[in-house]
């Protein structure tokens, strides 16, 4: 017995792909190697109001646990740039519940969901992916599939089995580490981000409030940097009496793909979604929204391709084309921005902090208004060549 679609990995990308494909009337299997979907989570938990809407969801207090109205960004010299909106602009999520909720939605749409089920190989025939081998509690199972969706995260193996290299270069991945802490928070509706080569080389420290006195306190640093992400975060916490007093309820780590997406997002009978495809906002490192949007596109293309009886690479590349139009182009601009910012010294960042507003930073993170940044940099001879990379 076989399925129309087997989705490997029940993170936001995989669950949204499975839900969409099932809603289109396909027979879908969604497998997750972990024993609990959503746990252990990997780092950040922020999602914007627009992002939640794009996923067709309404914020639910069970998983959208804290409303965010703005952010404070700290330059290396401590200069603060804040932006606060009158309305809620995003939520900090309880990822374990959120991810499970998305998988439930896939199941309710008709997909079969199996946790603690590990993909062990692909069935290949004449250059086409034709099915999946997987293992459940030691039982080896084979199932045919017209299309396989590889949503197996940063540690992606499935696409590699089909011949697509998804390995992250060290320059293009961040090392992430994070604590959930009980701490004193002054503004539980504001995100805080701290920049500086000594604080978080080629990355930042974040404090994302999850409630009045609970926060996700984490760090991402460039993968190529010497030194260990955890040590940088511990040093930051040590330097802050308010955090130092806090308690640690949970510890998580992860790799965050922050380069361009993999060379191609589809081959015969296979599509790649989410962290496996490196679909992440390279400036803030957020991937929930990107993976989910990609998953929904992949689910839709899967339905059309199967209906037409053509699951060739040429047909499935429609997923990549649609994704590039919707998200890829903007994410590529954001990668360029990251690559420019990475070349700036702490002094450069301090200088920019004097000239930019909080709204500017929000725009940049969304891939907009780079001209303003480029113009400021152009006035400094040393930064001209970096600024050109933004245009």
């Amino acid at each position, binding site marked *: 017995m076989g399925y129309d679609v087997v989705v490997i990995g029940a993170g936001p990308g995989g669950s949204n792909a499975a839900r969409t494909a099932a809603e289109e009337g396909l027979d879908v299997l969604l497998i*997750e*190697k*972990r*024993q609990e979907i959503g746990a*252990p989570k*990997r780092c950040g938990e922020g999602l914007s109001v627009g992002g939640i809407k794009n996923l067709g969801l309404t914020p639910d207090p069970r998983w959208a646990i804290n409303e965010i109205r703005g952010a404070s960004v700290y330059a290396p010299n401590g200069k603060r740039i804040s932006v606060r909106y009158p309305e809620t602009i995003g939520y900090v999520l309880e990822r374990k519940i959120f991810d499970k909720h998305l998988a439930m939605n896939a199941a309710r749409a008709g997909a079969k969901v199996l946790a*603690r089920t*590990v993909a062990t190989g692909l069935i290949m025939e004449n250059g086409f992916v034709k099915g999946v081998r997987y293992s459940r509690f030691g039982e080896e199972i084979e199932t045919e599939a017209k299309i396989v969706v590889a949503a197996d*995260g*940063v*540690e*992606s*193996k499935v696409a*590699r089995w089909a011949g697509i290299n*998804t*390995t*992250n*270069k*060290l320059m293009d*991945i961040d*090392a*992430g*580490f994070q604590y959930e802490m009980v701490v004193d928070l002054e503004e539980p509706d504001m995100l805080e981000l701290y920049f500086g080569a000594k604080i978080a080389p080629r990355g930042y420290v974040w404090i994302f409030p999850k409630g009045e006195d609970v926060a996700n306190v984490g760090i991402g640093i460039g*993968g*190529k940097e*010497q030194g*260990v*992400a*955890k*040590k940088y975060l511990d040093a930051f916490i040590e330097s802050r009496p308010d955090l130092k007093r806090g308690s640690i309820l949970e*510890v*998580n*780590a*992860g*790799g965050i*793909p922050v380069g361009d997406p993999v060379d191609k997002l589809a081959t015969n009978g296979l599509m790649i979604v989410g*962290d496996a495809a490196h679909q992440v906002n390279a400036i803030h490192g957020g991937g929930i929204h990107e993976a989910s949007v990609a998953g929904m596109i992949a689910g839709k293309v899967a339905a059309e391709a199967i209906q037409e009886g053509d699951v060739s690479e040429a047909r499935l590349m429609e997923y990549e084309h649609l994704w590039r139009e919707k998200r890829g182009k903007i994410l590529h601009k954001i990668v360029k921005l990251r690559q420019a910012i990475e070349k700036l010294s702490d002094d450069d960042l301090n200088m920019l902090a004097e000239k930019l507003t909080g709204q500017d930073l929000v725009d940049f993170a969304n891939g907009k208004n780079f001209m303003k940044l480029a113009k400021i940099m152009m006035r400094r001879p040393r930064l001209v060549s970096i600024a050109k990379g933004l245009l």
Partner: protein
Amino acid sequence: MKGKAAINRELCMACGGCVGVCPFTALELENGNKLDLDGESCTGCGICERFCPVGAIKVV
């Protein structure tokens, strides 16, 4: 001569990030909660050591 990656189980969080940077597919996240090294494939390049967020891998 280069050695092989060695995993310190006391430190390893099984986050899987190193699996994503290994160019030789020498690392695997078994059941999503245990990091495994395939010593045959490991070349001792040290990329995983450089990346690890908690310093759990050393090439020895």
